[in-house]
């Protein structure tokens, strides 16, 4: 339904790097990382938000920062945009140092912030038009055409003259994503793109983000939704307390950190938990609230035992990212 939304603006911005997905000579660029961080550190007084991390983010993929609140995800994104000064270390985007070239980096980057900050004084179409002005794009027929394409992409064509405060949360988010694409960015940064949205709205956002990835855009997103990370991200970096705990594809991370199968028991009292713990073997048992998780390579013996115990509700499933996440970041509550 959307066509190629990078088409119109590709000609609009002068001296712009060629479209990565479609031009063969940029094949070698795919190997070169789009973002490189070395010993990246940010502290506020005594509080260390980002604690000397190293990472590289490949081009043309969807890369995720996964971590609990306070892990340092948003701070890292802001440093990438050049709007949070580094305390120390090196950080370059498009091979440009963020401390000197923030303006150039932002010219080729699209940003979807954690909380929508659409301009409440304007309608949908005026929001897009004004945002194009902040990128220095001329207000001409080409821009109008691009705005039409973006509105269609965001499924907002019908509401183009509505004021932003009349939009639902999902619509505002879609408009924010459309706004982030106005400059035909090579890199799109999304800070918790679906937090606070209902399931339908989330699925729409996910399908749009997948389309962008298929067009060869590099997506960098933060999330604490495992499902989102698993669906969207080619590669993930799990962060906590300003450090990187591990990095890899969702499948790799699962393979590396947890047993392939898990049996989850819910609604157990302490006595039941103790009974099960002493009767169940050859598995790693974790306990969270009144749920019990048994991680194992071969679930047959445990399942046999549990089936013979009456009155137990349990679920047998393959391990997922959530299991990795909880193992690496611990199970205590974060605020």
């Amino acid at each position, binding site marked *: 339904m959307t066509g190629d939304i990078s088409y119109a603006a590709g000609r609009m911005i002068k001296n712009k790097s060629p479209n990565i997905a479609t031009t063969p000579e940029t094949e070698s660029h795919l190997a070169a990382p789009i973002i490189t961080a070395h010993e990246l550190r940010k502290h*506020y007084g005594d509080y260390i938000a980002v604690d000397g991390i190293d990472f590289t983010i490949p081009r043309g993929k969807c890369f995720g920062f996964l971590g609990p609140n306070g892990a340092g995800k948003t701070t890292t994104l802001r440093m990438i*945009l*050049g*709007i*949070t*000064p580094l305390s120390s270390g090196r950080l370059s985007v498009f091979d440009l140092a963020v*401390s000197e070239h*923030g*303006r*150039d980096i*932002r*010219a080729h*980057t699209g*940003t979807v*912030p954690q*909380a929508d*900050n*659409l*301009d*409440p*004084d*304007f309608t949908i179409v*005026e929001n897009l038009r*004004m*945002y194009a*002005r*902040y*990128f*220095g794009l001329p207000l001409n027929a080409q821009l109008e055409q691009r705005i039409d394409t973006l509105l269609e992409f965001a499924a907002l064509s019908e509401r183009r003259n509505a004021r932003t405060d009349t939009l639902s949360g999902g619509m505002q988010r879609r408009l924010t994503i459309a706004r982030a694409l106005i*400059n035909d960015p090579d890199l799109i940064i999304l800070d918790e793109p679906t937090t606070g949205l209902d399931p339908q709205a989330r699925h729409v956002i996910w399908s749009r983000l997948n389309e962008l990835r298929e067009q060869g855009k590099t997506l960098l997103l933060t999330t604490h939704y495992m499902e989102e990370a698993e669906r969207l991200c080619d590669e993930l970096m799990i962060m906590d307390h300003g450090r990187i705990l591990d990095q890899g594809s969702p499948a790799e991370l699962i393979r590396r950190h947890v047993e392939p199968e898990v049996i989850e028991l819910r609604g157990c009292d302490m006595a039941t938990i103790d009974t099960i713990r002493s009767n169940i073997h050859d598995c790693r048992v974790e306990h969270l609230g009144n749920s019990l998780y048994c991680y194992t390579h071969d679930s047959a013996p445990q399942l046999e035992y549990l089936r013979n115990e009456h009155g137990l509700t349990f679920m047998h499933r393959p391990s997922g990212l959530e299991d990795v996440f909880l193992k690496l970041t611990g199970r205590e509550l974060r605020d």
Partner: protein
Amino acid sequence: MNLWQPPRIRRNALAIWHRNVLVWRRLLGPAIVLNFGEPTLYLLGLGYGLGFFIGEMDDMPYLSFLASGIVASSAMTTASFEGMYSVFTRMVTQRTYEAIMATPTDIDDILAGEMIWCATKSVISATAILIVALFLGVVQGWQAILVIPVVFLIGLCFAGPAMIMSAFATNYDFFNYYFVLVVTPMFLLSGVFYPIDTLPAIMQGFVQFLPLTHAVALTRPLVTGIPLTQALLHLGVLLAYATVSYYLAVVLVRKRLLV
């Protein structure tokens, strides 16, 4: 990035100005009522009413004396309001700057654009007063047209300090301090309502440091046609206030937003 790094203003500043023009245009009706209504009431009420008892001041009808001073003071209040309430709203309440800062338009451009917009609003309000004054027969000669660029500079000169206040403010009530301690005293002391040479000697020295004194010293001769003296000094003071306050506002807003 060094917070004290000298600002670099680009064409993007005009996008900020453009944004504000578009929003202002939407509220044109109330804006016009305010811009024309208020000075008309002031000039008729004080100029004729009080002028009846005062007669002449500084060898001119009190209405002329007052109108030529109010042109400058309204430029001050307009730019101050815009630089505080509106800038604070966009910077903090609406988080418009946060959205803009994700683009190549940065704080240097944003504040330059806001400052030009504050000055534009000063020009709009002063022009309205000038038109009212023209109808009341106050304006003497074509040199009065030069008031417009002067008022633009007055707007810049007061926009900067107002934006500094916005950079410090945690809520709207904070601005009361600035109005009560700075704007209102200046309004009363800088020669808008009576000549400054009637002040005690020590005060006469002090008011020379106030930018509104120099603003009035420019607008009064231009509107009423009396000889203009020391124009370069007055322009220089206004320009210095504008430049230094812009720079400080940029540093303080960087300190606040680039965290």
